[in-house]
């Protein structure tokens, strides 16, 4: 009965989880705070929309191209990070968000203000898939992304990125080419974000410039920080909780964004590492639970 609704919420939450995992690589590992991630999101969604409606490709044939293009454009958009850092970079990313939105809104090639309509649902073997099918596709992409992120977090690359994030000069003195790793982070991040954009575009069926506004970027960064910067579990958790939370506040419809904003501020201040980040509230709870379990098992 409420199946479709829950599925649809879960689909969007999964899409955002993929995006936040991408943001996590950039902001969590290399500490390059991006307040313009909606721009990268828009690039994925728009590229896919254009490939489908103008070039007539299908979901599956357009997907690899879109991801490749997202990655390339992401690296290009990341180039300013070689010149500026810290707060200047934050503002540069905000700027990128507005510029991308302005371009999509003002150039007819990108549909302009009328947006791009008619991004059909993907098909498998000529058969159209329903909501459930699309959820499964999204979920499998999410699992794939988690796997890749997990594997990546075990590599030397992640260590180098974290070192770059902690102290760029020190990292350089250790022989890490920080420029390469910054770009590497932008590339990975925009790849995942582009993937999320593709999935989002298909599930809505249309894209409009205003769907990728600065408010979305704020939401994305909030999701990541809420869950726990620099951790995979935190990224996924943050995306799910912050996307689903306003839905629970539906019974106080009129006040829900007020509560949401206030809670966001409180939680970030009280739990700066995120609820599920290292040393976060839930993280400690779970650790304690696990420990207790281990103890009881030992006793028995």
């Amino acid at each position, binding site marked *: *009965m*409420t*199946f*479709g*609704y*829950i*599925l*649809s*919420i879960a689909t*969007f939450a999964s899409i955002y989880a993929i995006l936040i995992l991408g943001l996590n690589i950039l902001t969590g590992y290399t500490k390059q705070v991006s307040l313009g991630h909606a721009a990268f999101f828009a690039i994925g969604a728009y590229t896919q929309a254009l490939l489908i409606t103008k070039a007539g490709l299908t979901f599956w044939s357009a997907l690899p191209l879109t991801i490749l293009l997202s990655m390339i454009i992401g690296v290009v958009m990341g180039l300013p990070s070689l010149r500026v850092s810290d707060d200047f970079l934050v503002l540069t990313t905000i700027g990128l968000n507005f510029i991308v939105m*302005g371009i999509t*809104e*003002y150039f007819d090639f990108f549909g*302009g*203000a*009328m*947006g791009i*309509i*008619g991004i059909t649902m993907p098909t498998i073997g000529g058969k159209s898939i329903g*909501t459930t099918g699309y959820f499964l596709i999204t979920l499998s992409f999410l699992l794939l992304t988690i796997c890749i992120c997990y594997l990546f977090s075990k590599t030397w690359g992640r260590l180098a990125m974290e070192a770059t994030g902690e102290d760029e000069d020190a990292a350089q003195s250790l022989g890490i080419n920080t420029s390469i790793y910054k770009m590497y982070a932008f590339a990975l991040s925009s790849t995942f974000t582009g993937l999320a954009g593709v999935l*989002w575009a298909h*599930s*809505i*069926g*249309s894209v*409009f410039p*205003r*769907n990728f506004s600065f*408010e979305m970027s704020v939401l994305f960064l909030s999701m990541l920080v809420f869950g726990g910067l620099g951790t995979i579990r935190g990224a996924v958790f943050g995306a799910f909780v912050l996307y689903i939370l306003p*839905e*629970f506040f*539906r*019974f106080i*419809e*009129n006040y*829900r*964004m007020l509560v949401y904003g206030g809670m966001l501020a409180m939680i970030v201040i009280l739990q700066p590492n995120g609820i599920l980040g290292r040393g976060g509230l839930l993280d400690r*709870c779970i650790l304690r*639970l696990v420990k207790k379990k281990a103890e009881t098992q030992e006793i028995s």
Partner: protein
Amino acid sequence: MRRFLCIVMVLMFVLCGLLSVDAMAQETVKIGFITPLTGFAAADGYSSLESAKLAVDYVNEHGGINGKKLELISYDDGCQPDQASALTRKLIENDKVAVVISGSYSSPSRAAAVICQQAKVPFTSTYAVHPSIVEAGEYCHRIGMAAPIQGRVGGYFAARELGAKRIALLIMNNDFGVSLAEAFKETALKLGAEIVYEKKYPLGETEFRSYLNAIKAADPDLLYAPGYYNEAANIVSQAREVGLRCWLMGDEGYDSPKFIELAKTAANGVFITTDLNRDSDRPMTRYFLEKYKERTNIDADMVGASGFDAVMLVSHILNKVGTKADDIIRYWDTIENFEDCATGPIITFQERSAIRPMDIQIVLNNQFRYFYRYYEPEIIYLNPPSGGK
């Protein structure tokens, strides 16, 4: 262990929240309504929702739907398409509404329309103009005016009635402004006018003096500036300030008492194309205008009127044919001369968009006044009927 229990309880609570199903749902006929109550579009959402509630009260006072009460279930989409699409699913599956009405902007309306088309539930948008909304399929209708018609009416009035030869365009860059401007331009050019200036500005812009100075230099007879009242109030008052002396013309987005309040005396003399005639003596229009003022303490606007009309029309259909989707749709396309609405009578539906006589109103003495009405089929029909010429 206790902590584990706590977590389980929280999860249970959460699930209950999600699955909350009304047990006594069968006594009423439900219609769903999605509208932005939070975010930048909150003002339009509020007008729309209050008017819809007003219409529901009216229907229930007059016998309801075949003896059953009409119930409006509304959700806030925050003007986000992903929320609109999830909420539409919720309305259809959880609340089991007979019809979904969108009192939201084009992007969320389009997302909702697609879901309704898939689920084969009748859908109607109120004031969203994007052509793709009704193109989603045969289950999707539009109560408001289609942009091509309104732009065309504006073009006829400017070029034929006012005789403007040199026209400047200042267009709000969203689907509303752009689609109106396209139709206006086509008509005006056909009628022999010339476009001397054209500029797009983004939603939320407040400073127009640099554009208006350029427009003044271009010396037009008329400035057509499709947009919403917030921006329009700034355009109009700044146009008077820079000393632009030409006709000013707007659209139904201006049609709100707030426009006059914000633009003050500068609003006087501005023409708008709309379908809400405040000088009308039709009982439904008077009822809407008076009750809305009583309910909310502010004067009604066009957005509200189309929300009201949507509920009135839907309840009329439900009364006639019951709640089966296919019957509703079949009947919907045959409706003719529907009078129980706040805007001009709906003559018919063409390409699933409402067709009605179009009004030109002028602001005089800080009030919208009736000025001119178009009945000609080649102007007010989406595709003029054959032989109508």
